[in-house]
């Protein structure tokens, strides 16, 4: 893996601003939706098949995380939990980089590293789904 620290090239996409802006927008949407007490359509996959989908348990994971119950959040959906934690860390990095006008962290993968990551991701999603079926099914 080749890691570099550099400033954005002309016309290069500003991933940090995009991620931070999207997260802020999603939070605003969540805030308004919550304040309006609108209903949540249930999981269509679960309604049709009776089997939990790969993201089932995400809602309860978020509730537990919001209440600071880290262990419980991890138990509800480990993959969603990990994704949220990674997103929070990236947003902290993005805020620091944007406020301090610092160089951006960029990395590139070699061919076999990319293939390894691809296979590992598929295995992780499948394992997480198997766990959800075992826990919620």
């Amino acid at each position, binding site marked *: 893996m080749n890691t570099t620290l550099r400033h954005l090239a002309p016309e290069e996409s500003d991933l940090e601003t*995009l991620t931070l802006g999207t997260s802020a*927008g999603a939070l605003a949407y969540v805030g308004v939706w919550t304040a309006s007490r609108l209903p949540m*359509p249930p999981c269509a996959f679960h309604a049709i098949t009776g089997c939990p989908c790969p993201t089932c348990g*995400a809602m309860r994971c978020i509730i537990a995380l919001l209440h600071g119950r880290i262990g419980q959040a991890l138990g509800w959906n480990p993959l969603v939990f990990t994704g949220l934690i990674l997103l929070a860390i990236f947003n902290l990095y993005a805020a620091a980089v944007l406020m301090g006008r610092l160089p951006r962290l960029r990395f590139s993968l070699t061919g076999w590293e990319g293939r390894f990551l691809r296979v590992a991701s*598929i295995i992780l999603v499948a394992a997480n789904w198997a766990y959800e079926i075992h826990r919620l099914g």
Partner: protein
Amino acid sequence: MIHIGRAGVNLGSFSEFEVRQGLATGRFLLTDLGWKEGMENWTPLSHFEEFATPPPPMPPLPGSELAELPGAPAAEAGERVGLPWDHRGQIGFFAAFAETVWLVLFNPGEAFARMRTSGGLADPLLYNLVGGWFGAICAGIYLVIMTRLQPPPAGATGMRALFPFTPEAAMQELKIFIFMGPVIVTVTTMIFAGIAHLFLMLAGGANKSFMVTLRVFCFSYGSAQLLQIIPFCGNLMGGIWMLVCCMIGLAVAHGTSMGRSVAAVALFFFACFLCCAGLLVLATGAAYK
């Protein structure tokens, strides 16, 4: 006539002049496949005798030195001409929007072959905002009408429980769509594009950056959301057609196979529409007691 194809998508049939012009402007690439009567198989355009050698450059106009000026516009090899939306300064806002919608919905192969894959994101995001906001408001209005015509029964189970909106909740949602539309549309498209790009990477088809995927989603979502204007079934039609446009768009814009693109969009559909929708999960998760 010469039939042109790219990444498993037939872009249509064109005269030799049109293909030559397309190669000069970047609409077509020498790596695109072509077929004409008498040929056994599709062949890269670079193997066509008529396109193998570029035409001699036009001699400079006597007395003119414009082409020699530094910074004078010059068409680079492989440059895409852009969608009509990119030329709205010349053809007008509404004409450019209508032409782009028509092109994306009814000839997505050509639309995404023309779509620029670099440059700022303001243009695609604005297009997405116009189409998406309009579509969201239409969907909200029809939901209000439907819930007033047939309110959901209390304690509904199974498939009927998938639509739990009361008339009051539907009206509240419409207000949110009206006042927060730009934020909702932009955030939703960003998240959708991000998830689809991850799946495209998993399928081994992400040959270009996330920004190209985001552009495909902006133009697909902004166009297909207009179908929400069709009462009651527009939501379904818009959703399905957006997925079709995305499949074709990702294959053409990323220069990958249609199989990888279909796999990525199918996984995206499974994750975002068949499972709990991400934003709604977050929203209700925070409100749940």
